């Protein structure tokens, strides 16, 4: 059973974990040691706080405790200390309890998202180091066995240590090259939560919310970077529709059929404010533009009254900023809404030669939809069939099976 104090410790821990870890990494230059003493400090809190009460500055208490434990550990283990090439263990001064410590999380963000790390490890490390998730929690989030995730994290940490990936914030000249990588990691955590790539459920809201939480931290750390605001706006505007995206049985509800009253108005309002920030004061970046597209959907009362010419125009901008076959596909769908299914299908078919779309389910779904609307039902059924083969979650499969039946059923009648 959970006591109220252990609940308080957990809440504090989740909030303070990233800051604590980052500050310790900066001081000791070693992620393993920082993690070890962070956990030890939390364990100490679980022993002391129920007896002595939660201190007035819990984060500072945890920090002072963790630093003391790190110094103890390094005094006991001189070889380890020597390996870390620390100047002088004894010179590590103890922080007075209650003292504030600076926020070093930004450098940890850049380390966890370092391009030299495996793509699949970057999100996992970020969730673990900065969102304070445990390895089993990260494993659950990505639907992989805990042992697999543990191995992935160990491997990434070994590379950080042995290849000496630095803990540092890139300089102003490098930032434009490195920030997109950090944003991409946060966004990939979000999209994994938004449409789970596999499993029984369509959405994993926890993961989407963790991504939003991480983007909020990043925005506090980099308030002048408009793409950070753009990313946060995009995620809020999409996440605002979470309740309406699935039916009571977990089935897929398309944008056209969603009950827009069920969208989260407060979240949309916050997202719209951030879109303005992202698009003001200079050329927009890809996240700002995607957020602007999401905003057009959120502001419309229905699919029919959506400002499709504006959506198409924004996709044109996006294709210049961040060209990709998926952007071209989305643009084709928007053109279909503006000019009719035949115009959209012509664009979609023009993309069919791109092998990056061949195994991309939404490409075949979009094609099936346009063909169905044009009454070309046997071809529509074929496209839905392909999409069905590629779908990763049960609700997506059920939805596509229904549409496949629909295109076949009408063909017979």
């Amino acid at each position: 059973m959970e006591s109220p104090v252990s609940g308080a410790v957990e809440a504090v821990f989740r909030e303070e974990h990233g800051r604590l870890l980052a500050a310790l990494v900066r001081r000791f230059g070693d992620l393993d040691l920082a993690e070890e003493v962070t956990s030890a400090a939390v364990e100490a809190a679980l022993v002391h706080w129920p007896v002595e009460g939660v201190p007035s500055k819990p984060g500072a208490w945890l920090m002072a405790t963790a630093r003391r434990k790190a110094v103890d550990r390094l005094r006991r283990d001189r070889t380890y200390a020597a390996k870390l090439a620390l100047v002088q263990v004894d010179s590590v001064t103890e922080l007075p309890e209650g003292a504030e410590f600076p926020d070093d999380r930004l450098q940890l963000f850049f380390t966890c998202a370092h391009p030299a790390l495996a793509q699949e490890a970057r999100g996992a490390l970020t969730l673990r180091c900065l969102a304070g998730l445990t390895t089993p929690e990260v494993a659950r989030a990505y639907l992989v066995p805990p042992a697999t995730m543990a191995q992935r994290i160990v491997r990434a940490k070994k590379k950080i240590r042995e290849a000496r990936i630095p803990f540092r914030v890139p300089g102003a000249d490098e930032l434009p090259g490195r920030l997109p990588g950090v944003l991409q990691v946060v966004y990939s955590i979000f999209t994994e939560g938004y449409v789970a790539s596999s499993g029984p459920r369509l959405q994993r809201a926890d993961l989407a919310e963790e991504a939003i939480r991480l983007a909020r931290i990043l925005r506090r750390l980099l308030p002048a970077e408009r793409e950070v605001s753009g990313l946060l706006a995009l995620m809020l505007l999409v996440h605002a529709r979470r309740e309406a995206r699935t039916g009571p049985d977990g089935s897929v509800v398309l944008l056209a059929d969603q009950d827009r009253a069920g969208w989260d108005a407060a979240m949309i309002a916050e997202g719209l404010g951030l879109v303005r920030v992202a698009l003001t004061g200079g050329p927009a970046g890809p996240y700002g533009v995607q957020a602007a597209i999401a905003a057009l959907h959120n502001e419309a009362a229905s699919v029919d009254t959506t400002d499709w010419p504006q959506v198409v125009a924004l996709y044109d901008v996006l294709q210049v900023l961040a060209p990709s076959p998926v952007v071209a596909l989305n643009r084709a769908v928007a053109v279909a809404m503006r000019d009719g299914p035949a115009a959209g299908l012509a664009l979609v078919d023009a993309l069919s030669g791109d092998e990056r779309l061949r195994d991309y389910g939404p490409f075949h779904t979009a094609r099936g939809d346009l063909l169905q609307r044009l009454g070309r039902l046997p071809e529509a059924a074929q496209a839905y069939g392909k999409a069905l083969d590629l779908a990763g979650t049960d609700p997506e499969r059920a939805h596509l099976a229904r549409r496949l039946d629909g295109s076949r059923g009408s063909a017979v009648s």
Partner: protein
Amino acid sequence: MKYMLLINAGAVAEDGSAEGCTVQDWMNYDKAVREAGIFVSGESLADLVTATSVRVGPDGTRTVVDGPFAETREVLGGFYVIDVPDLDVALDWAARCPGALGGGSMVVRPVADFGA
């Protein structure tokens, strides 16, 4: 911290220069590495057709064969070992190397430290 920069050159022209860079570029790079005080060692390798492989079987028999021959377009053409503070600095030096141009690539490998 020591890193080996393995130079996998792309297409090589008659005069030994890779596509998109000149011999002068290589000389400039080599000078820059040395002047930065990070140079530990480095060599450029003779043409791959001069390579020979040797293997010793469990019974001690030695097998010598011509090659290997390039199976990909990229061929190990040389290396540098540099001593720099961290991977980011090593990657910067790798990116400056002419071997990273013209379809070539650089592989950056930390040198193992056995705590000597």
